[in-house]
């Protein structure tokens, strides 16, 4: 029985590492804000998102925030953020790089929140760094600029994009909700009351 449990854990860990991509880079110094919830959670949500996409902002600021609070932080589901910057969004990749760099300082949540909050402004002006700076100290700003130059950050984003393509992600935001090894894509902005009913149904199975 213990052997079975151990095997299951190893399998889940391998799957998580393979899917999480940049969420678990070797250079990680603090717990990642990109993946929330237990690795062996019954339900896993892989979110493919673009910081410059207005629908991603809508999903993040409404539904996802509540999923994180009510399900991921309570250990019911594992929520993993994957970067999927779309080619038509000029500054999305740079925003993803800064968010990934901030993750190494344990500031992913703060940076991703400000990127979405000020999306309308920086997506026109291109002043992504300025938006990010508003939630960082002077020391953190300096460190983030250095970390952002690390090729591993860019590589992790590319890995996320490739993972998304393998999972047939065609647009953002896309959530791949996996339960009992069965993945189901949910595309676009969906409301919290309906997705929570679906998650409850999966958790009750």
């Amino acid at each position, binding site marked *: 029985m213990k052997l079975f449990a151990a095997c299951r854990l190893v399998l889940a860990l391998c799957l998580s590492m393979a899917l999480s991509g940049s969420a678990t880079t070797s250079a990680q110094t603090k717990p990642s804000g990109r993946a929330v919830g237990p690795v062996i959670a019954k339900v896993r949500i892989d979110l493919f998102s673009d910081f410059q996409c207005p629908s991603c902002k809508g999903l993040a600021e409404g539904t996802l925030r509540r999923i994180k609070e009510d399900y991921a932080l309570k250990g019911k589901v594992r929520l993993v953020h994957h970067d999927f910057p779309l080619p038509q969004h000029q500054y999305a990749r740079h925003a993803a790089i800064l968010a990934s760099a901030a993750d190494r300082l344990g500031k992913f949540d703060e940076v991703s929140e400000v990127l979405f909050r000020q999306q309308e402004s920086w997506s026109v002006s291109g002043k992504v760094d300025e938006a990010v700076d508003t939630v960082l100290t002077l020391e953190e700003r300096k460190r983030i600029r250095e970390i952002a130059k690390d090729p591993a950050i860019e590589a992790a984003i590319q890995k996320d994009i490739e993972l998304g393509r393998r999972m047939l992600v065609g647009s953002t935001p896309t959530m791949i909700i996996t339960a009992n090894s069965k993945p*189901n894509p*949910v*595309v*676009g*902005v969906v409301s919290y009351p309906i997705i929570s009913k*679906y998650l409850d149904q999966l958790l009750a199975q």
Partner: protein
Amino acid sequence: MVLGAVFVYAAYTKLRQSWLLFALSIDSYQLLPQWAVLTLARLLPWLELALGIALIAGVWLRYTAIAATSVLMLFFSVMLLSYTKGAGIDCGCFGVGEALSLKTLARDGVLLAAAIALAALSWTAQSLKPRA
């Protein structure tokens, strides 16, 4: 027959999965309130199934063809509206996992044209029948 089979298949793809997953597809169009999304997600697959069976069996063809045309016209309008708004969402046509695209619009357009033709033919054929 073919149109009926398409309706039956569309119903099958929705009924074999959780109805809430289909509710999420409808919800992503962001056109309806929550109660309407949930009600439609419960009812629509059964309506499609009933329409499909009726079309295949050829019962009340004039009326089922009109009903199929109305349903497809509604789908097409909603899809077109969302596509022009640039919503990157799931079509929800045959279960989940198919993005709303020009391809899905073209397919729905062909089905709509077929339904209109069927409705027109069934009403024309009826009116041409010799009367005693």
